[in-house]
């Protein structure tokens, strides 16, 4: 698909792609959760993410010329046209890796959406008002799990620390600036990502301390998602997500 969205659209797609790709990953837990309650919890979270993605794609697509619908944006773009954070496309790993990733991202996302409720873009503001309530609920859930695992058994502590160490390099992408986020900040449509960093670190530090987990000391961070450069895992998740509508483009439920 020919695709060269303007900066405003790129910003909305970045938000939508984060929600869709994480929702798609989390939905892989369906039927595989450690116990029934947690299976239900993580799938509810996936459902919220996919619902948010739909609203954001609808909003992004309406503003495009020619206008595109949510399905065209989700199912017919290629890998380098997706602008999500690379952390969100990583395989789920074990429960600790899934929940530590969720905690890092939920905390960022909550702070971001809190600011999006004051966006100069009225439709984005409305979506954010709705999504913030859900994200707040997710953020509390994932923080509780990080504390429970870090402060739990020797095994759960080890797995939680492994997850923190493994995922930490991917958190740098949250706070990077690029063309679309700078432009969104100038329009007062969204906060500058770097403005969120001190608040994110404050919350993350507090939870890691309570969980008895060590914060990695690191100089190098993963980058690329905001520019459409992804890990080797992205192609597989898109294949799973997109093959049916691509095989049967006119298929209806």
């Amino acid at each position, binding site marked *: 698909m020919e695709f060269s969205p303007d900066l405003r659209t790129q910003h909305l797609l970045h938000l939508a792609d984060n929600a869709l790709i994480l929702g798609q990953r989390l939905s892989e837990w369906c039927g595989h959760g450690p116990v029934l*309650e*947690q299976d*239900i*919890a993580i799938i*509810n*979270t996936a*459902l*919220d*993410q*996919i*619902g*948010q993605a*739909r*609203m954001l794609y609808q909003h992004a697509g309406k503003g495009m010329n020619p206008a595109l619908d949510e399905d065209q944006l989700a199912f017919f773009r290629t890998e380098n046209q997706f602008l999500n954070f690379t952390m969100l496309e990583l395989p789920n790993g074990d429960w600790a890796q899934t929940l530590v990733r969720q905690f890092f991202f939920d*905390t960022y996302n*909550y702070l971001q959406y*809190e600011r999006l409720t004051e966006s100069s873009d*009225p*439709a984005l*503001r*409305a*979506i954010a*008002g*709705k*999504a*913030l*309530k*859900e994200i*707040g*609920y997710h*953020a*509390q*859930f994932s*923080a*509780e799990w990080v504390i429970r695992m870090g402060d739990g058994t020797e095994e759960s502590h080890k797995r939680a620390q492994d997850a923190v160490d493994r995922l930490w390099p991917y958190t740098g992408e949250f706070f990077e600036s690029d063309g679309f986020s700078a432009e969104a900040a100038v329009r007062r449509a969204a906060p500058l990502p770097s403005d969120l960093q001190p608040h994110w670190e404050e*919350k993350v530090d507090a939870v890691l301390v309570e969980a008895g987990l060590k914060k990695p000391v690191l100089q190098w961070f993963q980058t690329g998602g905001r520019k459409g450069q992804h890990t080797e895992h992205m192609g597989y998740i898109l294949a799973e997500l997109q093959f049916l509508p691509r095989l049967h483009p006119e298929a209806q439920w």
Partner: protein
Amino acid sequence: MNSGLTERVLAVLETVSDPEIPVLSVIDLGIIRSVSVSEADHSIHIDLSPTYSGCPAMDTIEADIRSALTSAGFGSIHVRTVLEPAWTTDWMSESGKRKLEAYGIAPPEKRSGDKRALFGKAPEVRCPLCKSTRTTRLSAFGSTPCKALYRCDECLEPFDAFKCI
């Protein structure tokens, strides 16, 4: 604005229930934000506020509203989804809350400042069976996006509670 017709539309909407919680009507849920009937052609305009972004019941609810109004003899029905202001459990009617408790689901309490969600504490939830407030949250999520799972420490029964948002 034809008030007699609006009353009739509202009466029909009282009969449309949430497919996942059949004791609640769409009016009880507080998702109907406005109803207007055009004087000129009797077309109906309804503003609907979704509960959760990804709630799969919303499409069914919209279809149920259309079919109930069509069966009642109304034509030209326009349903619009409005996101702002975001739906809150504070919009649930008092009679809806009573029906919910009688059905065995703890109704939502008044929302406590959701800005504190990141550091927040769970609200006090009353057992719908024995009315004890000695209850424990088993899971923050339940069988549908709008519910959480609790256990009563007095009568020991597990129950669903409506999440407060």
